[in-house]
């Protein structure tokens, strides 16, 4: 292993870090675009706090929980100590041929933050800000690294006779986020006005352009998410992963587009966007194991699946403003199963392992998240008041509007501040002087 290769690998991994980082921008724009303008600041606030919370929790103990190292790893739990401490040789190739200790930490830390961001969109437009922040801290700090260890940290899913396979995290990242989101949605309930007298009333997001920007940025980010998961710059492996990722995204777009056209007889653009993301999530579990045709099929199926899922969740009155469940949970499961159906690893034993992985991760995460949400509901409360929800979280939780001056000439006017007037305080009319 030459020093040069180590340097190259590390450069590649750093580029991947940047790409995974921009996914947070992608989520921020996607989620706020798909929500109403009265809740935009709130969503951006949450998304902006995810990388900070993710990184700091990961620095505090998350990294040691998820990658405790051979000495400390258990089957279901391991821990190698508080904080992040540069190990002997951590800045050289003796740490790893692909990256330094710091690169490792930052790449994994950026990953960690994404799973909480997935939850953020699903519970948007009605959850209390503080409650969500507390949830994220615990979820990213405990649930994600523990589950992650099972596979990537060397835990029991990795030591099955046919090891569970999840290349870049269809299950470990996306489904984990999805299960957390599902638990939250169930305890929160739908937004006011979403299901009225048994009818579904769509609540369109406020900016399709912003959502589109988000999807493009997420696709870009996925190059690092999947490409970086090779954990080195190995030319064949990485470039193959990039191609399969792109083809699945492309096929997802086509799947979402055609399938929704068949169903709804209109070019439903949100389904194209969802299709792209679905393809990306779907390929994530096996991006390094698939061929060209496999990837296209996986993408097509994911793109169609997401259309069905969105409709079904709505029928079930599971109100998910940004479609996070359909994309991350459903297609995360699909992608994980696909490893058993397509590509190099296909076969019944693998399929069984995939099912075990999906079940174990899903069961634990859902239970963890449900209890956590429930405790928060009992203590801090989950949901804003009806008035806050109607008037928007922005003005109540942040005293701010997202677009203060559009069509508001008088907006800048400031007046002596007043709280809501009580009947008794009503001013007497000043005498009129002509």
């Amino acid at each position, binding site marked *: 292993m030459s020093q040069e290769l180590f340097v190259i690998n590390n450069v590649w991994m750093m580029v991947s870090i940047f790409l995974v980082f921009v996914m947070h921008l992608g989520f921020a724009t996607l989620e706020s675009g798909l929500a109403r303008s009265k809740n935009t600041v709130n969503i951006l606030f949450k998304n902006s706090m995810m990388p900070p919370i993710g990184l700091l929790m990961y620095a505090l103990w998350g990294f040691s929980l998820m990658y405790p190292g051979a000495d400390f790893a258990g089957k279901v739990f391991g821990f190698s100590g508080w904080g992040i401490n540069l190990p002997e040789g951590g800045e050289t190739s003796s740490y790893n041929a692909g990256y330094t200790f710091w690169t490792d930490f930052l790449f994994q830390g950026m990953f960690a933050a994404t799973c909480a961001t997935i939850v953020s969109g699903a519970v948007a437009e009605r959850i209390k800000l503080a409650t969500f922040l507390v949830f994220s801290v615990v979820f990213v700090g405990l649930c994600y690294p523990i589950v992650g260890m099972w596979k990537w940290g060397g835990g029991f899913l990795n030591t099955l006779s046919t090891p569970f396979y999840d290349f870049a995290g269809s299950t470990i990242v996306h489904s984990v986020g999805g299960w957390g989101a599902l638990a939250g949605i169930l305890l929160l309930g739908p937004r006011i006005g979403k299901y009225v007298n048994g009818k579904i009333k769509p609540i369109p997001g406020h900016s399709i352009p912003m959502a589109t920007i988000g999807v493009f940025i997420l696709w870009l980010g996925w190059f690092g998410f999947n490409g970086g998961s090779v954990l080195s710059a190995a030319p064949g492996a990485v470039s193959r992963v990039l191609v399969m990722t792109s083809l699945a995204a492309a096929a997802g777009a086509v799947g979402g587009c055609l399938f929704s056209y068949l169903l709804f007889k209109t070019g439903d653009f949100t389904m194209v966007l969802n299709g792209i993301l679905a393809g990306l999530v779907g390929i994530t579990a096996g991006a390094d194991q698939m061929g060209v045709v496999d990837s296209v099929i996986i993408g097509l199926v994911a793109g169609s699946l997401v259309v069905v899922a969105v409709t079904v969740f709505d029928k079930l009155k599971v109100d998910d403003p940004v479609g996070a469940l359909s994309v991350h949970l459903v297609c995360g499961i699909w992608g994980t199963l696909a490893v058993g159906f397509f590509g190099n690893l296909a076969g019944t034993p693998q399929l069984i392992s995939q099912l075990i992985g999906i079940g174990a991760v899903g069961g634990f995460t859902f239970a963890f998240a449900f209890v956590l949400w429930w405790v928060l509901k009992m203590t801090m409360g989950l949901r804003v008041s009806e008035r806050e929800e109607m008037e928007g979280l922005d003005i109540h939780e942040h005293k*701010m509007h997202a677009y203060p001056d559009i069509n508001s000439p008088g907006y800048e006017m*400031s007046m002596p501040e007043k709280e*809501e*007037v009580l009947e008794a305080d009503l001013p007497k009319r000043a005498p009129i002087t002509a």
Partner: protein
Amino acid sequence: MKISVKPDAKLMKKIEAIIRTSKFEEVYEALAEIGIPFMSTYDVKGFGLEHGSSQVYRGTSYNVGFIPRTKIELIATDDQVDPVVSTILKIATTGKVGDGKIFIMDLEEVIRIRTGEIGEMAL
């Protein structure tokens, strides 16, 4: 073309109501139920006893002064005025300062552009 503006066509009224924006949907549905799903609406900024909620921007709090309200404009015949007004009052009243006002004005003439019909026929 000659439109005769009859001075005796005073059977129509224009009703303007300024209501809480969040009440609009309910008011609309209630009016539709009594057979008046016809109106024009737009957003206004309301200045009244209730002041806008205070906002904070970079550490300074301030008050925008106004509250977003929805204005409804509705032409109705004389005998529809009572039910319309009472329907609005029934739905849009919360009892808190800021519920808004209803104004009633005389209307001289109304014409349906599609057909040129005038008066009550045009409603």
